């Protein structure tokens, strides 16, 4: 479980942190919901750790996993 990454998004240099003025990089993050955790790789600011969740991810994979967990 620990080694598996459920979702990977590469920022491809198109996202920039406004606070730190640096480009977001692909970084490790974790989704947590109802006592469950899922490792993912998302665009992350290397300085301030801001993690970006794109709309398609939030309304797609994230939503379906939420629904599955809610009915556990």
């Amino acid at each position: 479980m620990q080694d598996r990454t459920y979702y990977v998004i590469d920022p491809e240099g198109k996202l920039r942190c406004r606070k730190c003025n640096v480009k977001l990089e692909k970084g490790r993050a974790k989704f947590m919901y109802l006592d469950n955790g899922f490792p993912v790789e998302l665009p992350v600011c290397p300085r301030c750790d801001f993690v970006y969740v794109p709309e398609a991810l939030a309304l797609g994979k994230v939503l379906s996993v939420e629904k599955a967990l809610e009915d556990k």
Partner: protein
Amino acid sequence: MSKIQERGSTHVYKVNKISKEEMDSMVSLCVYEDPPYCNAACPLKLDTRALMKAVAEGDFKKALQIYEKIAPFPVLLSQCCEAPCEGRCRMGEVGEGISIRDIEATVAANGEVTKSGGVFRRKKRQTVALFGSGLFALFLAGEIEKKMYPLTVFCEEADIEAYLKSAAAFLDEQSFAIELKRLKSKDIDFVFGCELSPKFFEEKRADFNVLCASEEAAKCFFKDAQCDRALMYYEAEKLVMGSGSGTMDAAFGAKKAALTVDRLAQKLSPANMRGEEGAVDTRLYTDMSEARELKRVAKSGAVYTKEEAMAEAQRCIQCRCEECMKSCAYLKHYKKHPGLLSREIYNNTQIIMGDHQLNKPMNSCSLCGQCAVVCPNGFDMAQVCHAARRNMVSTDKMPLAPHEFALLDMLFSNEEAFLARPQPGVEKCKYVFFPGCQASAIAPATVRAAYEDLSDRLEGGVALMLGCCGAICDWAGRYEMQETTREFIKNELSKLGDPIIIAGCPTCKKELSESVGGEIIGIWDVLEQIGLPEGAKGLSRPAAMHDSCGARGDEATQNAIRDLAAKLGCELLETEYQRDESPCCGYGGLTMYANREVAHEMAEKCLERSDAPYISYCMACRDRFAREGRESRHILELVYGTDAGNPPDISEKRWNRLTLKNNMLREIWGEESEMAKLPYELNFSDEALEMMDDRMILKSDVIAVIEHMRETGAAIDDEDTGYIMANHRVGNVTFWVALTEDAEGYTVHRAYSHRMKIVKGNG
């Protein structure tokens, strides 16, 4: 504002709010699974309804398969069975019952004979011997062969034709030929020309595991042979035996005997575990309005032709109780009768580990109670679903997601937007007006006009209470929250000196009667007394009246509303499902939050009754019908000449409540309460507004994101879209906003949310 605690998924199982026994007694009220009358009357348990359907559709092959399940010799049975089914056919009550036996005869004569594929069927190991002939023996031979026991028949007859003749001498030539062919195709060993003597029996008995005989043969073997008619068993000699006084009696006797053979072969007591045998009672309800063709189809010859049999079978109304499913969009959606759906929902509440697949169905019922009224037996799906929700909450298995928005909305009504004040200049008011949260959210001007009218025209002072009655947490099954809400409202009422509550909404009236008690009347009752205010005017076109599910069983309220409508000069149309039978608009039970599709189907079901404008007396109904594009008015809008117009979105519903409170505080009670003004311009694209309403994202959620971004500076630039992307977690939800910034402020272009928390690193 208050938050609601999200559940964990590994909580300890706590308490059951409803026992298995209580559930079983509720489920037993549903008669859907009761057999139709014809089937109940048949000792052989022929699925007559299915057989009639197959014939009506012209599928004689399938019809014969159904018939063969209970009749090893269909032609024989159909020609001489006494047909107890026909006497119970419900069609007989309004006209002539279906000629079931004649149809069976045509099926038996015309259906394709099912091949008993002897080679492929695996025989059982226990062997059976059957001595003697006659109708009972023939039927029993057929039953035993069907049960796959290797069977040897010992008879005096010289050949198989003589054997069949001994049982069915009355068959005409053609019928005899069919049954002879069928008998020959059966996997039975015949030993013809036997002398059925006690000696012969003694010689053979050790060679078989189970022994059977016709009554005649049995009496020849044992002078005193006598069987127990329930088991067809002569226990002293371990002999399965019997006869029949008529065809049905012989066929039923053979069925009972075959079951005894089965039990004996398994070395089990023949008296136990036999299940339900023979004809039974049934409680099935049948809507006789389906009956069209009351007269029997005449036979052109001795038997029905296939076409005649089809026409006769088409008269069958296929007795089935679907009263609730006809009237309820929810049950129709899930295509399950309530007995079955309830059992599944109850089982869902008992799952400790694993998927709760019935969460959504359980949360999709509007708890409106219509089923209990239309069901001839009073089955109440609301009771089941409500208890199940409370069970899920009590065991901490209830997901918060489907109901959180509504619950937070209720907290908003009872916190930020709550208002309780006595009428200015009156210390202890006789009344308090409680318009209900949806009225303030959807038609604030109507609420204000109603309050001003009541406080103006009623003696003794009228206080005002803007808030939620607690129906929302009640529907969600959140019984602890319900208790808190009850205490809160009780306390606020007590501060006002426990005045008589004038409810503006039938659901509030019902909820408050059950929770805080005291004297509660409806504004409709008051208006009936004091008359309409000046300027009250009905619709110029005839309208349909939609009764509120909150007023189910409350005839006085239903009458008072109609009386008001008449005084307003409204012409009301007669529609289906009125008064106590009224369906829910989809707001009740929080259906519109848990299952939008079903809520939409509910609204459609309400609106299919008429093309006219709808008048309702619940603001939620008014709103949902307007959202479906129908001209829809709350009766109080007509009374006070205040058109609430187009339905507000979710943010406007909150804004309406807040501004109503603040405006009334300022203008009636002289209390200044500043609405917080944003220090920047905030605009929304049309796309964003539509998206937010659809995704249940409030403007206040978006503002929380922007405030957070302004405070912390946390946000990113997306080069592709040119948007600034900012986020913030409010309660259990993380909101994301795509915006652009200019000198004056911000424009919101998109918004979305997720409930999962996100953390950097591997955690």
